[in-house]
């Protein structure tokens, strides 16, 4: 029995990894372990440097805006958000205020939650620059400016989410959108996704359309993994429920808290009264940019097929199960691999079995990315052709698969006519007769009750045929010949 409804809103920051350069400087936008190597003068705010807007970043941000069914702006402008922090070399961040319209406003996003389709309204989506990254040591901190100026897309939802799992489902959906649209790898291991979470509790039975009923908004800052989002929300719902139960909820001020992963709790940072005044104002070095309708049309046409579209196609056109289709589209790179297999002429269901079972199993075992997977779709095709032409049994095919991966050699090296199964009755019979003739002692023991010696004979047949003997036939003939003796 729940007496309360959780109102959850997300602010999802995603680094756009797919532009060549940073959002306002010409420095390379790529992940590197070497500190301070992707840096141009602007990224360290040397005097006299000026921002230049990266058109590709704007294009991708507008594409995200369209995918989220937002309204796109007619004129683009950027604002300064002023504050001092060591990771912010200019002393301000170039970002976009929510009014009049950054990259998009008032959108709506459908996402899968279990077997259901849920809807979440989007308040706005805007483009900004990332800050430098800080490494804290015992007495000092190091600043790495590689991240300073990396394009960052911030998505702000309305509080339409009601549980931690729903929030994670939404985030997974968005990660997939960013990956499929070629906007970002959206890899939280690389720190590309960071979230702020807003949670409040509303009494059941009230009108959910009226914001006055939503309760006191608690913002939780800097949650950097989906697991963290789930835990932070669950913790916060529990904390706020307790406050409701013991009557202290109404005393609670609107506040900002921080998620502490170690203790698994949220910690008070500041109340709304102490909110920082960022003194937003228009960035004077970037003129207002008119967005041409033609350009928007062009962007709209270039939106790639997204996960949901592919899933529908896999089910309706390829006849895959809902489950398999879901597994295949979860990671865009896996789905791309699968589609490449189909392009090469592999049967959709056969490819689905190989990719969804064997390959994903292998990837999970090794913890690798399919883009680094040794066995290409072309190589998979070699194995499947081996099966189709009757050279490989399905067992052998799996062995070839494993061998190719182990020895990093193309499967065709392990497939030849010699591999073909021996299924010729006459050939097998004469071989078996020969083997039995050579083992009179074992026959005697077998006849005397040592049943397990049957396997010994099968082993001898396999040894003599290097495993190529048709196992079913081998067993039949063995029984027959042993019975004769």
């Amino acid at each position, binding site marked *: 029995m729940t007496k309360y409804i959780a109102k959850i809103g997300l602010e999802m920051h995603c680094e756009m990894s797919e532009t060549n350069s940073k959002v306002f400087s010409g420095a390379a936008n790529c992940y590197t372990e070497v500190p301070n190597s992707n840096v141009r003068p602007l990224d360290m*705010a*040397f005097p006299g*440097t000026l921002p230049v807007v990266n058109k590709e970043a704007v294009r991708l941000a507008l594409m995200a805006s369209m995918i989220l069914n937002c309204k796109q702006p007619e004129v683009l402008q950027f604002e300064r958000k*002023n504050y001092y922090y060591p990771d912010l070399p200019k002393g301000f961040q170039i970002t976009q205020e929510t009014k009049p319209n950054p990259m998009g406003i008032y959108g709506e996003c459908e996402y899968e939650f279990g077997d259901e389709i849920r809807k979440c309204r989007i308040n706005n989506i805007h483009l900004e620059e990332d800050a430098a990254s800080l490494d804290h040591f015992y007495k000092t901190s190091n600043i790495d400016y590689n991240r300073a100026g990396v394009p960052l897309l911030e998505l702000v939802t309305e509080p339409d989410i009601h549980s931690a799992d729903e929030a994670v489902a939404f985030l997974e959906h968005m990660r997939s959108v960013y990956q499929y649209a070629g906007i970002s790898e959206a890899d939280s291991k690389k720190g590309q996704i960071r979230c702020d979470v807003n949670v409040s509790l509303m009494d059941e039975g009230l009108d959910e359309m009226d914001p006055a009923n939503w309760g006191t908004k608690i913002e939780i800052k800097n949650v950097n993994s989906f697991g963290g989002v789930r835990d932070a929300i669950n913790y916060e719902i529990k904390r706020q429920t307790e406050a409701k139960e013991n009557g202290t909820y109404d005393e609670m001020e609107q506040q900002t808290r921080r998620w502490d992963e170690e203790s698994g709790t949220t910690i008070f940072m500041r109340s709304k009264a102490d909110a920082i*005044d960022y*003194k937003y*104002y228009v960035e*004077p070095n*970037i003129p207002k940019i008119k967005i041409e309708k033609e350009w928007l049309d062009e962007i709209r046409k270039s939106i790639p097929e997204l996960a949901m579209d592919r899933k529908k196609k896999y089910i309706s056109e390829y006849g895959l199960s809902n489950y398999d289709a879901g597994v295949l589209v979860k990671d865009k790179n896996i789905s791309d691999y699968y589609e490449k297999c189909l392009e090469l002429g592999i049967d959709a269901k056969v490819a689905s079995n190989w990719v969804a079972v064997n390959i994903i199993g292998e990837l999970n075992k090794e913890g690798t990315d399919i883009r680094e997977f040794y066995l290409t779709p072309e190589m998979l095709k070699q194995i499947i052709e081996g099966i189709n032409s009757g050279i490989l049994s399905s067992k052998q095919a799996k062995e070839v698969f494993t061998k190719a991966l182990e020895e990093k050699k193309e499967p065709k090296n392990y497939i030849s006519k010699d591999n073909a199964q021996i299924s010729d009755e006459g050939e097998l019979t004469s071989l078996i007769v020969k083997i039995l003739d050579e083992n009179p002692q074992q026959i005697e023991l077998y006849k005397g009750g040592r049943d397990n010696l049957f396997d010994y004979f099968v082993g001898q047949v396999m040894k003599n045929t290097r495993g190529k003997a048709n196992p079913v036939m081998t067993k039949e003939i063995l029984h027959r010949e042993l019975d004769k003796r």
Partner: protein
Amino acid sequence: MSYMDKSIEELHELLVSGKVTSDELVKESLEKSHEVQEKCNAFVTILDDAKGGEVTDNLLSGIPYGVKDNYSTKGILSTGSSNTLKDYVPFFDATAVVHLNEAGAIKVNKTALDEFGMGGTGTTAHTGVQRNPWDTRRMCSGSSSGSAAAVASGVYPYATGSDTGDSIRKPAAYCGIVGYKPTYGMISRYGLFPYASSLDHLGVLTRNVRDAAIVVDTMKGIDKNDMTSWDSKDVHLLEACTGNIKGKKLCYIKEIVDRDKFKNCGKELKEHLDNYYNVIEKCKKMGFTVDEVSVDQVLLNALPSVYNIISYAEVTSNLSNLTGIIFGPRGEGDNYIDMMKDHRTKGFSPLIKRRFVIGSYVLQKENQERYFRNAQRVRRLLVDRWKEIFKDYDAVILPVASGPAKFLDTSKNVQEENTTLLEEHLQIGNFGGFPSITIPSGFVSDLPVAINITGNCYDDENVLNIAYAIEKELGYANQIAKEVKHD
């Protein structure tokens, strides 16, 4: 024989004909630099190892010049005349400097300025006060104080400047030379240490209008590093200086210069206005139409506040990068906040700190609408009014300031009434990004005074040609400062 008092075109002739070498010019310019440093304290850095360069077809090749110290110069100390950057040696050139380098121009010094271009007196540089070469008891005004003193003293034919309110055009007036800032964005701001980005212009101080045209022809150009720059390849300033002013119409603003406002004024202001109206008469004789135009007094009265609010707000955030962490002297302290505070407390002059406080105040959420946004609206109204004027007139012609250079010892200055707009009207040129040029118009108390001509955006050729024609008529081109006698 001295050469550095000559115009660019004369020097180019001499260089091409082999009558003088670039090395000789650089040597003379450096010697003069040291003299003027002694007298006026005009420089932050004198580049004693500067050498002459190749002389080509380019008018600027082989000729020395000065760079205002808020221009980023690769490998050369660039301080913005501030203690916060007193040890800063950039690793890149401002785009305008790149263009001058490509033309073969020779840098010989970096000129002092009011700290980061703020102040307008030439008294706030971290290296001390710049003195006026005509009378060292007086100010050059600022912020391009060092550039003005040096060009007026004949150190070289030109020095670069920057102008956010009147920082090129007012010191040019006080020092008896020409100061020109072209349309906003004609010269890239990349590498200029910012004051207020939406008002900042680059430009030049010279001793005649043609020289100003030559230098800006070189400095200008669209720049991929400055989104506010524009393509001016079809603008040819020097070629535009023909002196043909047939059909040109000028106007002045009644509310700024009407004599009725200054009925009881002192002698210098009266002579200044006489000088101005004399110029107007000459213009009429030359064939210009000159009309009086009226602008809403309430709108005009808001001008200084609008300038202060917008420029202080912008500079507050523009200079937030000066923390002493990445560049500039590292502050002391146990944590980054204390280090930054120490750096900024020691580094900035009180004038700038005051501006930061005000700038911050007007941007605060609860104040922004009332101050900053309203200032932006009034700025728009003023610019719209001026654009309306430019539909009927080629340019607005007005006197610069309320008289000749003021005394550094402010107690010696006569306090006049109703002079605020006379002192501040040049800021409209920055509000609108209008091309604006100051040229000398004669003398008051043996000290130079000047007029200003401001036209519509992108109409630089017209503005320069008008200035060129008036300059010819008035005959104050190529002035070198002569120290006036005083007790």
